[in-house]
């Protein structure tokens, strides 16, 4: 029998490898997809079809000089990218990729309050961005991080409320339990409003177009990571993509049945379905980025507080009433 700590260690190492590789190729795919949608071929110089592009990018970032501005708070400035990355990775500790067997689970840990863990860790992730922007000691990063904080507060609320509808239907906060509750039908059907709200808030949560005001190039140079260079910039970049992957995983788990096969196609293993669904979500985010222009900042806030939050609350109340009446 392998000891528990060894299992956790092996799972973590494997997961780290999978997530980092996925990040590298998600970046390549995003550049390719954006290229195709703009009638360009996308990166195709390094290796066949540009498949070695991530390696070239990584080599470039590692070889770049790591600058610290004179006005920066050196300790926090250097720490911030690691906070971002650490929180981005730690969410994967509880995300199950397939049905749990009797002996163990696909996730590293399977806590009862899995979804709360995800929410808590995702909220800590903002510290990386806001501290990084503040510690840079220059104005654009500061503006970017202020925006990030405000945006995160206004969208996290609606996001949590959209979760609650699912939790009421599933009757559990464990991610395994939520997916098992979707064996008959996916929660996207009864919780369609919640799903739409989640997808919108998830885009805002990961600071991606059209809600990427945190790094709005036209106004803020590069937003919170203006002063960062080399590997530290790369860490922020990895964190952004890993967060994208995280919100896709959560959308799949909460609304699209996780590893449950659609149309009774049960001969394909659940992990494949999970990966396919996550890939669809990732593509959707790229697709959004290629389509929509960036929102104005006040409209972003107005949309969050005046539309998403009331609708999410209404959705929660209606769900609660229906569940209470049906038993």
């Amino acid at each position: 029998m392998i000891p528990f700590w060894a299992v956790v260690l092996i799972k973590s190492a494997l997961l780290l490898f999978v997530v980092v590789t996925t990040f590298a190729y998600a970046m390549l795919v995003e550049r390719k997809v954006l290229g195709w949608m703009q009638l360009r071929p996308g990166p195709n110089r390094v290796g066949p079809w540009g498949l070695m592009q991530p390696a070239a990018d990584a080599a470039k970032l590692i070889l770049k000089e790591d600058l610290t501005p004179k006005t920066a708070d050196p300790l926090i400035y250097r720490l911030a990218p690691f906070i971002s990355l650490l929180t981005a990775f730690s969410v994967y500790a509880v995300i199950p990729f397939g049905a749990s067997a009797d002996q163990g689970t696909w996730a590293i840990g399977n806590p009862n309050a899995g979804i709360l863990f995800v929410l808590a860790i995702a909220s800590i992730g903002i510290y990386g961005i806001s501290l990084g922007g503040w510690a840079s000691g220059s104005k654009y990063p500061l503006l970017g991080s202020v925006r990030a904080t405000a945006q995160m507060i206004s969208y996290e609320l609606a996001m949590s409320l959209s979760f609650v509808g699912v939790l009421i239907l599933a009757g559990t906060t464990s991610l395994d339990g939520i997916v098992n509750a979707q064996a008959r039908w996916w929660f996207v059907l009864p919780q369609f409003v919640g799903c739409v709200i989640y997808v919108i808030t998830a885009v805002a949560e990961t600071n991606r177009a059209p809600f990427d005001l945190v790094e709005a190039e036209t106004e803020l140079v590069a937003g919170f990571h203006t002063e960062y260079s080399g590997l530290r910039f790369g860490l922020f970049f990895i964190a952004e993509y890993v967060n994208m992957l995280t919100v896709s995983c959560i959308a799949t788990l909460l609304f699209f049945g996780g590893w449950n096969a659609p149309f009774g196609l049960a001969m394909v293993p659940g992990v494949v379905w999970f990966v396919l669904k996550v890939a669809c979500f990732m593509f959707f985010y790229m697709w959004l980025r290629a389509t929509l222009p960036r929102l104005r900042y006040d409209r972003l806030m107005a949309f969050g507080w005046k539309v998403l939050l009331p609708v999410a609350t209404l959705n929660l109340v209606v769900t609660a009433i229906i569940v209470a009446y049906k038993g």
Partner: protein
Amino acid sequence: MRKRLYNVGAILKGLSITFGFMFRKRPTIEYPSVKKQHAPRFHGLHELRRYEDGKERCIGCELCSSACPANAITVIGAENAPGDRRSPGERYAARYEIDELRCIFCGMCEEACPTDAIVLTPRFEMSDLRRGSLIYSKERLLVPPEAGVGRAPDERPGGIPGDLGRVAEIKSTMDVAQGYSATWRGNILKTQRKGLTMIEPSRENGA
């Protein structure tokens, strides 16, 4: 509220447009490995032609150099020696230099030349690391004796000489028979124009 719902429709429409563009043919020509088909009379690097018997066409009259608006051409003529006749006329070009960095590739030299000696070829890849090497001497401009006589622009069938490599198969220059709309860019512009006329102005104000 109704106006907001129309906006959702606009987002969906935008998404469908970008998705459709993924499967369009891309107009990109991957340049160093594939070359664009140029118009037959594209103005590129100069060439000094010969007659069939190997004699130089240039008679050193310096008309090209006085026609040149950029003062890029230097010609110094000399009398043909009776034993060694370089050109059929009395004189030939003892020195013939073109500063390709000054040249604006207007083709005035070609028009001024009374013997059709100087022509512009479609070659355009002549970058170099030193300025000096872009002043082309007569040895570099003159068609080598074994390469034939050189071609006048009217006699060139395609845009690009065969030795320049693979040429893109798409039509990217104007098709004389069909006009501008036969090209890829022309097609895109045409559909864009169609889309513009499709938008009804009344619906914009109605909501």
